[in-house]
C-alpha cells in the first residue's frame, strides 16, 4: 500500500460500504512476560456518516479499541488477531509513511482532557494550522484555514484564540479547539473518547450539540466512546456494549436502551435512577460482584459470576454472538429471558419520614468565603443563607466554581469562613476551625469525600480506619468497640476479613464503604456526602446510594448531598439548593424544583443533561463559559449567560434577592414567578 493508494481511498470503501469494519479483533498486552488478552473477538462496523457508540464501565477496554484503531497501542500491546479496515485500508498492514497518511487524512481522535491534548508551549492557532501544513499548505494559508476552522467550531473570537496558549483557554474552549484540529483534515472517521467527561453539564451540552452539527456538515462517521449511557443515547445511531473486553450486545441505540437483551445491559440500566425515580419509590437494582481480572482466560461466559440467570451451559462454553434481528446481537444464551431478569436487590423499601421541620438542625447565615491567591481575590461563597431540617436530605447542585464543596468544607470547619458568617448547630454557634471545635461538635458533623483513594490513609488497615472514630469520637474501647466495629462493618455490607486489609487491596466501591463506615463511626447527626459516587462506576454507584438511604434511616442522620448529577440528586433529596458562582439561585422541595417553574439557571441545567428516556421536551442553551469567581458579573451573576434576561437592564444592574415564591420555594430572579411559569410552559411545547 502506498500513499497514493490512500489518497484515492475515500471513494473506495473496501467493498462493504462501511467506513470502519472490525472483525474478530483481539488485543493482547504483554505484562511481566505473560500475554493478557484485554479485548476478545471484537466485531463491529460503522457505516458512512453513521454515529456508533461504544459504552462500558472502567476496565471494559473501550479506550483500547480506539488505540488499536489508530495503531497507538503502548509498546507492549498488539492486535493479536482479527482485522481492521478503515475505508478499505488495513492500518495494521501499513508502513510508517502510509500510516502517517492514514492518520493525517482519514482518522482523527478527540479525548477526555482537552487541556492535555494540546501542547502547552505552542499557540493554539499553530497547532490547528499544523494539520493543514501536513496536507501541504503553506504557513500563511494554513493559518488562515485554521482561523476559519476555529470559527466553524463556534469560537466567537477565533483571531484572538489563534494567538492564545492552551492554558489560557477554558475547558470547553480547549475542547472546541481540539475538535477543530480533529476535523480540519475532514476525516472519514472521527473517534471521540469521553470528549465531554471533564466538562461541566452546560458546557457539555454545547459541545455535544456542536459535534452533532459538525457531523452533519462534514459527513463524518463517528465512533463515540463513553461510560455515560445517556450521552451515547443522545449522540449515537447504533451502540455496542463492552464488558470485560467483549462486545456483549449491539444494536440500534434506542432499542438497546429500551429493550436490552443481555443481563449486563439490563443490570446497568437498572442501576440508574430514571424517569424521575425517587428513593421512596423503591431501591435501585445493583450488579453484584466484580469485573473479572483483565486478560484472564475464561472458558465460560464472562458475565456468569455476576449473572442472576446463569445456567449450566453458560459455565461450560462462552456464548457466541446471537443475531436477534438484522440490527441486534447479544452474547447471551438466554437473551430471550432478559426482559424478566430477576432483580439482585429487592425493590421494596419502606422509608419512614424522619423529617422534622420544627427546628432546623443546622442554620447557615450570610456565609461567605473569600480566597486570596497570588493577589487575586476569589469570592467562592457570597452571603449564603440556608437551613438543614432534621432528618432530611438537602441536595446541593451546581457546576464547577459554584462553591458547593467550599460550602461543605466551611460547614465542617475544614476551611474558616469569612468574618460575620454564621453556622449554627441546633442553635449553637460552631467554631470556624475544626481543630478548635469540642468533641461533640466534631462528632455531630462528618463527611464522605468524593474520592476514597484520597480520603483513606493508604498505610492504615480498614480496622484502624474504622476504629479510630469509635475511640476518638464515640469514646468506645475494648469489647464495646469491637462490638460496634462489627456492627458497622455489617451495616456497610462488608465482612470481618476486610478489616485486615489496606485500601489498595479493595475495589473502589469497597473503599467508599470504608469511608462511609468511618463517617458513621462517631454517631454523627449530619453527614455531608460530597459527590460520593462520582469516582465510581454506575453499577457500584447504585449499591452505594442504596446503602446511604438505608443508613440514613438506621442512624437517623441528616444529609447534605452534593452532586453535579441531577438524576442522583433528584433520587436522593427531599429539598434541593442550586448554587451558581457562590450564591444560592434557587432552593425548595425537590419535586417543586424539578417540576418548575424553575430559576432560568436551573432550567438550563435541567435541559443540559441528556436523558436516557428519549428527547427532552425543552431545551434552552447557555451561551459562553461560567464566569470566573475572581471577576463575577455585576447585578445578577447569571445575567451574562441567561437566555431569559430582562430587556429592562435590571438584571445587569441589581442583584435579585432570594425571595419565597411559593411555600418553602425560594428563588433569586427578577422575573416574576408567573411570568417564568408561562415562559417555561411555552418553552415546554415540543
Amino acid at each position, binding site marked *: 500500500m502506498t500513499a497514493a493508494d490512500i489518497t484515492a481511498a475515500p471513494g473506495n470503501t473496501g467493498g462493504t460500504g462501511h467506513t470502519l469494519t472490525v472483525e474478530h479483533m483481539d488485543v493482547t498486552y504483554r505484562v511481566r512476560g505473560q500475554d493478557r488478552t484485554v479485548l476478545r473477538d471484537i466485531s463491529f462496523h460503522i457505516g458512512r456518516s453513521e454515529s456508533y457508540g461504544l459504552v462500558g464501565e472502567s476496565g471494559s477496554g473501550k479506550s483500547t479499541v480506539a488505540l488499536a484503531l*489508530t495503531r*497507538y497501542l503502548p509498546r507492549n500491546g498488539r492486535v493479536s488477531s482479527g482485522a481492521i479496515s478503515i475505508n478499505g485500508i488495513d492500518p495494521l498492514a501499513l508502513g*510508517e509513511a502510509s500510516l*502517517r*497518511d*492514514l*492518520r*493525517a*487524512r482519514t*482518522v*482523527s*481522535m478527540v*479525548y477526555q*482532557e482537552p487541556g*492535555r*491534548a*494540546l*501542547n*502547552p*508551549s*505552542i499557540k493554539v492557532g499553530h497547532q490547528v494550522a*499544523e*494539520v493543514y501544513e*501536513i496536507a501541504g499548505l503553506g504557513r500563511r494559508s494554513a493559518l488562515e484555514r485554521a482561523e476559519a476552522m476555529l470559527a466553524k467550531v463556534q469560537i466567537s473570537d477565533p483571531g484572538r484564540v489563534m494567538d*492564545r*496558549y492552551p*492554558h*489560557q483557554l*477554558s475547558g470547553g474552549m480547549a475542547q472546541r479547539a*481540539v475538535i477543530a*484540529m480533529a476535523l480540519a*483534515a475532514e476525516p472519514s472517521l472521527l473517534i471521540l473518547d469521553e470528549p465531554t467527561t471533564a466538562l461541566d453539564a452546560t458546557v457539555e451540552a454545547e459541545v455535544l450539540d456542536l459535534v452533532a452539527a459538525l457531523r452533519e456538515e462534514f459527513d463524518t462517521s463517528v465512533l463515540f466512546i463513553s461510560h455515560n449511557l445517556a450521552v451515547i443515547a443522545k449522540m449515537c445511531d447504533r451502540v455496542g456494549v463492552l464488558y470485560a473486553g467483549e462486545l456483549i450486545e449491539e444494536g440500534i441505540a434506542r432499542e438497546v436502551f429500551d429493550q436490552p437483551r443481555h443481563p449486563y445491559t439490563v443490570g446497568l440500566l437498572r442501576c440508574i435512577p430514571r424517569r424521575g425515580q425517587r428513593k421512596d419509590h423503591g431501591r435501585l437494582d445493583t450488579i453484584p460482584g466484580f469485573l473479572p481480572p483483565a486478560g484472564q482466560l475464561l472458558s465460560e461466559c464472562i458475565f456468569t459470576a455476576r449473572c442472576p440467570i446463569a445456567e449450566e451451559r453458560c459455565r461450560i462454553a462462552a456464548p457466541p454472538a446471537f443475531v436477534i434481528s438484522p440490527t441486534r446481537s447479544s452474547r447471551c444464551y438466554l437473551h430471550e429471558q432478559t426482559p424478566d431478569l430477576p432483580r439482585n436487590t429487592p425493590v421494596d423499601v419502606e422509608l419512614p419520614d424522619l423529617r422534622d421541620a420544627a427546628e432546623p438542625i443546622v442554620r447557615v447565615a450570610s456565609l461567605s468565603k473569600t480566597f486570596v491567591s497570588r493577589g487575586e481575590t476569589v469570592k467562592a461563597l457570597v452571603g449564603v443563607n440556608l437551613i438543614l431540617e432534621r432528618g432530611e436530605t438537602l441536595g446541593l447542585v451546581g457546576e464547577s466554581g459554584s462553591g458547593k464543596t467550599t460550602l461543605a468544607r466551611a460547614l465542617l470547619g475544614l476551611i474558616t469562613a469569612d468574618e460575620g458568617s454564621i453556622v449554627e448547630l441546633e442553635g449553637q454557634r460552631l467554631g470556624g476551625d475544626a481543630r478548635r471545635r469540642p468533641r461533640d461538635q466534631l462528632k455531630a458533623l462528618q463527611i464522605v469525600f468524593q474520592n476514597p483513594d484520597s480520603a483513606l490513609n493508604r498505610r492504615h488497615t480498614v480496622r484502624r480506619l474504622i476504629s479510630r472514630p469509635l475511640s476518638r469520637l464515640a469514646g468506645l474501647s475494648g469489647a464495646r468497640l469491637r462490638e460496634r466495629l462489627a456492627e458497622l462493618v455489617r451495616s456497610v455490607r462488608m465482612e470481618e476479613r476486610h478489616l485486615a486489609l489496606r485500601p489498595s487491596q479493595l475495589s473502589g466501591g469497597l473503599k467508599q464503604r470504608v469511608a462511609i463506615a468511618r463517617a458513621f463511626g462517631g454517631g454523627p447527626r449530619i453527614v455531608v456526602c460530597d459527590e460520593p459516587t462520582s469516582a465510581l462506576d454506575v453499577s457500584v454507584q447504585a449499591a452505594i446510594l442504596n446503602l446511604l438511604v438505608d443508613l440514613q434511616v438506621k442512624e437517623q442522620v441528616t444529609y447534605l448531598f452534593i452532586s453535579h448529577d441531577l438524576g442522583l440528586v433528584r433520587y436522593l433529596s427531599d429539598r434541593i439548593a442550586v448554587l451558581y458562582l457562590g450564591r444560592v439561585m434557587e432552593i425548595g422541595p425537590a419535586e417543586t424544583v424539578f417540576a418548575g417553574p424553575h430559576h432560568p439557571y436551573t432550567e438550563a441545567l435541567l435541559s443540559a443533561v441528556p436523558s436516557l428516556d428519549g428527547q427532552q421536551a425543552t431545551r434552552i442553551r447557555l451561551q459562553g*463559559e461560567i*464566569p*470566573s469567581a*475572581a*471577576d463575577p458579573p455585576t447585578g445578577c451573576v447569571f445575567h451574562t449567560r441567561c437566555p431569559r434576561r430582562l430587556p429592562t437592564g435590571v438584571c445587569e444592574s441589581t442583584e435579585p434577592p432570594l425571595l419565597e415564591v411559593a411555600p418553602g420555594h425560594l428563588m433569586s430572579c427578577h422575573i416574576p414567578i408567573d411570568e417564568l411559569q408561562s415562559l417555561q410552559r411555552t418553552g415546554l411545547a415540543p
Partner: protein
Amino acid sequence: MGSYILRRFGLALVTLWLLSMIVFFAGQVLPGDPGRSILGPLAAQRAVLNLDHQLGVDRPILTQYWTWITGLVRGNMGLSYQFRSPVEPFIHAALVNSAKLAALAFIIVVPLGILGGVVAALNVGRLSDRVISITGLSAATVPEFVSGIVVIVIFGVELKLLPVSASAGSGASALTQLDHLILPAIPLVLVLFGYIARMARAGTIEALESDYARTATLKGLSRSVVIRRHILRNSLLPTITVVATQTGYLIGGLVVVETLFNYQGIGKLIFQAAQGKDFPMLEAGVLTIGIVYMVATLIADVIYTLLNPRLRLGSAG
C-alpha cells in the same frame, strides 16, 4: 511577570544575607587567635595583641560582622591573614581562571548530557537506556579526584597525550590554555553529565507519554517532527533549571580539580585559605561562590519564565 522576577530577586538577597551570616559565624567558632596564627608561636604577645587590634578581631562579634558586611557591600572584602593584603585581587584573578575551566566543562557537558538523556528516553527500558542511566548515575557520584586520577593515569602518564597541569603559564596562547584545561574539565563533565542526562531523560519520558504527544502523532506527523517540535520544547525546559543549580556542585568540584591539577582558581584559593586558616579569604571566597550560584539560578529562573508561556502570560480565563 516583572513582579515575579523582582520578588525572586528580593528572595535571593535575603538568602545571600543569611548565607553571609552562616559564613561569618562559622568562621568565628574558631578557637584560638588570628594574630597568633599569623605571627607564629615565637612572636611577642604584644605584637599579637597589636595585630589582633589592627585586624579588628578583638572587638565584639556583632561589630565585626557589621564592619565586614558593610565593607562587602562597598566592595571591600577585607585583608588576607596570609598575604597581609586586600582579598579582592586574589578572588578576582581566581574567579576568572575558574570561569574558564567551568565554561569549558559546561560547553562540553550540556549538549552531551541532553543528548544522552533524550537518547535514553527514546529507548526507555532498552539496553542503551540502562547503560546511559547507570553510567550517568555512577559518574555523577564518583568523586572528581577519583575520576581525575584515572584520567591523569590514562591520558597524562600512560598515553602522554595531554598536559597534566592545568596552568599553561603566563602568556600562553588561548589554544595552549585550552589544551591544558581539557583534562581537568573531564572529571567535572563526568559529574555533571549524570545530573543533566537524568533530568533530560525524565522530562522527555514525561513529554513522550503526554496526551499532546499522542495528538501530534495522530495528526500524522512523523516521529522526528513530533520529537523536534512537540517533545523537546517541553522536556528541555526543566533541564535549564537543573543546569543552573549544578553550578553549586560544579564549584565544589573545582576545589578538588584545581588542587589535583594545580590550577589557581577559586576552589584552590578557598582550599589554601582553609589550610592556612585565612578566614577573611575563606569567607570572601565562600560568599563569592554563593553569589555566583544565586546569580546563576536567578538567570535560569528568568530564562525559564521567559520560555514557559504558562508562567510568562499567566492564565486568562
